[in-house]
């Protein structure tokens, strides 16, 4: 019984590994926000060689930057923005991984808690890293359930987009989400916490600067009602104090009147594309 079960498991594993190697699946196989983050981490650590990255720009930030249509920026852009995490995690990942990009595009909307997410350290842990590098079946993007979902998402893309649009059109839900975000963002962040966080960020970013990595800051637009909230103003002011606009490049905020948001904070797909193209034009200047 034991040997037959183990033999069956090995056979299944070999068959699945072969299947992954002969197919070139490009679906979005993420199952939730967390798995989407881990897939981004693993793609980054397994897919980019040191040589390639020297020509590339890495975007670091939060879920608001994850909405950017990275492909619209052209080749050589890697989006390492994470849902519910912060730009600190992206910067730490780039640092720990030891592959220096030509430029870092850093989102400045939030200054979240700077404790390295365990998923990042775990992905780089030799016990997880090397098996994942050897066997594709061990990478999160290739989980059987993820592939099943990716296939489904691909098959019903139009219908899913319509549902998202319908959800966005729900005025009551939008107002509720906006209010919820406003309540959170109106709460001031104690200066002691911000000083601590920005000291860490400063040393991290200056470390990259010393190694000739270009640094560009940008702020993703939010709904007009949230633009002047206490925490957003505080964070903006701290960025300008720790990274003065004279010494660091900042992408100016575009005119936000026409942007549409799903909850006041995250851009809708159409507006995300619009903002990405704006970002592209500013980067090309």
């Amino acid at each position, binding site marked *: *019984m*034991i040997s*037959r*079960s*183990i*033999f*069956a*498991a090995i*056979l*299944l*594993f070999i068959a*699945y590994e072969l299947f992954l190697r002969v197919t070139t699946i490009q679906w979005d196989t993420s*199952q*939730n926000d*967390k*798995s989407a983050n*881990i897939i981004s981490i693993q793609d980054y650590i397994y897919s980019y060689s040191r040589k390639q990255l020297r020509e590339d720009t890495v975007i670091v930030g939060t879920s608001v930057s994850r909405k950017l249509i990275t492909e619209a920026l052209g080749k050589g852009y890697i989006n390492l923005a994470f849902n519910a995490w912060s730009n600190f995690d992206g910067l730490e990942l780039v640092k720990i991984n030891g592959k220096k990009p030509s430029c870092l595009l850093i989102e400045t909307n939030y200054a979240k808690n700077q404790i390295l997410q365990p*998923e990042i350290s775990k992905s780089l842990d030799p*016990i997880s890293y090397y098996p994942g590098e050897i066997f594709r*079946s*061990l990478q999160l993007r*290739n*989980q*059987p*359930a993820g592939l*099943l*979902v990716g296939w*489904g*998402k691909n098959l019903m893309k139009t219908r*899913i987009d319509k*549902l*998202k649009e*319908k*959800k966005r059109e*729900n005025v009551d*839900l939008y107002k*509720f*989400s906006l209010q*919820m975000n406003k309540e959170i963002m109106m709460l001031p962040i104690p200066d002691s916490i911000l000083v601590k966080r920005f000291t860490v960020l400063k040393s991290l970013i200056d470390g990259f600067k010393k190694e000739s990595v270009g640094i560009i800051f940008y702020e993703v637009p939010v709904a007009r009602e949230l633009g002047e909230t206490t925490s957003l103003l505080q964070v903006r002011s701290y960025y300008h104090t720790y990274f003065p606009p004279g010494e660091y490049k900042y992408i100016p905020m575009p005119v936000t009147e026409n942007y549409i948001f799903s909850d006041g904070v995250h851009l809708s797909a159409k507006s995300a594309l619009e903002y990405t193209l704006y970002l592209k034009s500013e980067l090309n200047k």
Partner: protein
Amino acid sequence: MLFNSFPFFVLLIITFIFYYLPFQFFRKGNTQLLVLITASIVFYGYFKPSLLILLAFSGAVNVITSYFVSYGLPRYRLLLASIGVIVNLLVLAFFKYSPLIAVSFFDTNVGIGAFLLTIPLPIGISFFTFEGISLVVDTYKGHKDDKFRNLVHESFATHIRNSFFFIVFFPHLVSGPILKAHDFIPQIGQKSFKDIAWNYCFRLLVAGYFLKLVVADNLNDFTSSLTYPGFMSFSTFDLVSMLLGYSFQIFADFAGYSLIALGLASLFGYRLMQNFNFPYISTSFSEFWRRWHISLSTFLKEYLYFPMGGNRKGKVRTYVNLFITMVLGGLWHGAAWSYAVWGAFHGLMLALERLFNDRFNFQVKRNSFLFYIKILFIFLAVSLAWLLFKLPNFGQVIMYVKACFKNTGLVSNYISIFLIFLYALPVILYHLLYLKRQSRPSYLKKLEFAFYGLMIFLIVTNSGTAGTFIYFQF
């Protein structure tokens, strides 16, 4: 240490090798126990060695009181046993319920209220204090009942070793099953490698790790959004799916842990009691509690419900006893009033069910339509009550229920709902197959190896993002 962590596997392999090393058998005394005690100490103190002080104190109290209950002066037996039980309960109350006492009765910003809030909750305290109580009470019962005789060795040194091993044996130390002294201590002895029931261990370990890593951890990635105020923007369908998903998750998480514990203990020659027996096929609340967390429900029955009089003091007293037992059982789970409400809900349901059964002789034929309706009803009621575990603020529970009725027009996240169903499917099939065990086709038995092979394959390729076990917080 977590059963699903790399350091644990290293510890397990080293312990296993030393435990069964041939030279063990030529030594005087049982060095096997010392190997397991050492491994258990490393297991428990790995992250925070200071926790070992409390474990040692608790162990010492139970070892000393149980020894003198057996071999001390007969007239002090009851007094010593009572002291043992009270000290265990005080330790539990101090470490577990101080924050609840602080927020309920004191100003938490100053003085005693602030102090009580700083007291840490040592992992596994609810489990090892209950086992300590079992040791003391069983020893006391030994003078009246043969079942409980010979639990305490006449040599104090051997008694220390046996009792401490009973409390700290790592498979059950932090999350149970809650052992009873009279079940476990008689098993202590020299174990041989050739006696290992490999197939039994393999089945338990594979099923346990599958339930934890593939089912519970993946479901956790979806049910973790069930927090206030996030859930207010989910549709009714999303909310119900997440709650049912949580119901399957809590089963997979805890039953998975228990199966792993049973499998590990068996690798070292010890049989622990089965903790789950297909609870979601129950047709009544009393049946549910005979199938869910069996080691806790039998403990509460033996050490609380029976001593209170059980069902021997009339009908009304039986209902009251059931209710009190369940409220205290609820509070055992956590230091929040919502756990007491959860226990009260189950206590009330058990009492009402008993009252109904006392009045009417209502029998439902197995496999009839009504039989399945009863299963569904119990499952839904139990699942609804899990909300009190997930949202420990009672106000949020009310808001969740309101949102379920209000958010009918919102668009659902069908991908998440599909995935919740997909990950819950093994638990559903596991229960359905048990329900249909008599009419199960014989080829399924022949294909058993393929199911285990598939489970191993999925453990390797489709585990969720590893998390701690839900019952660790209790």
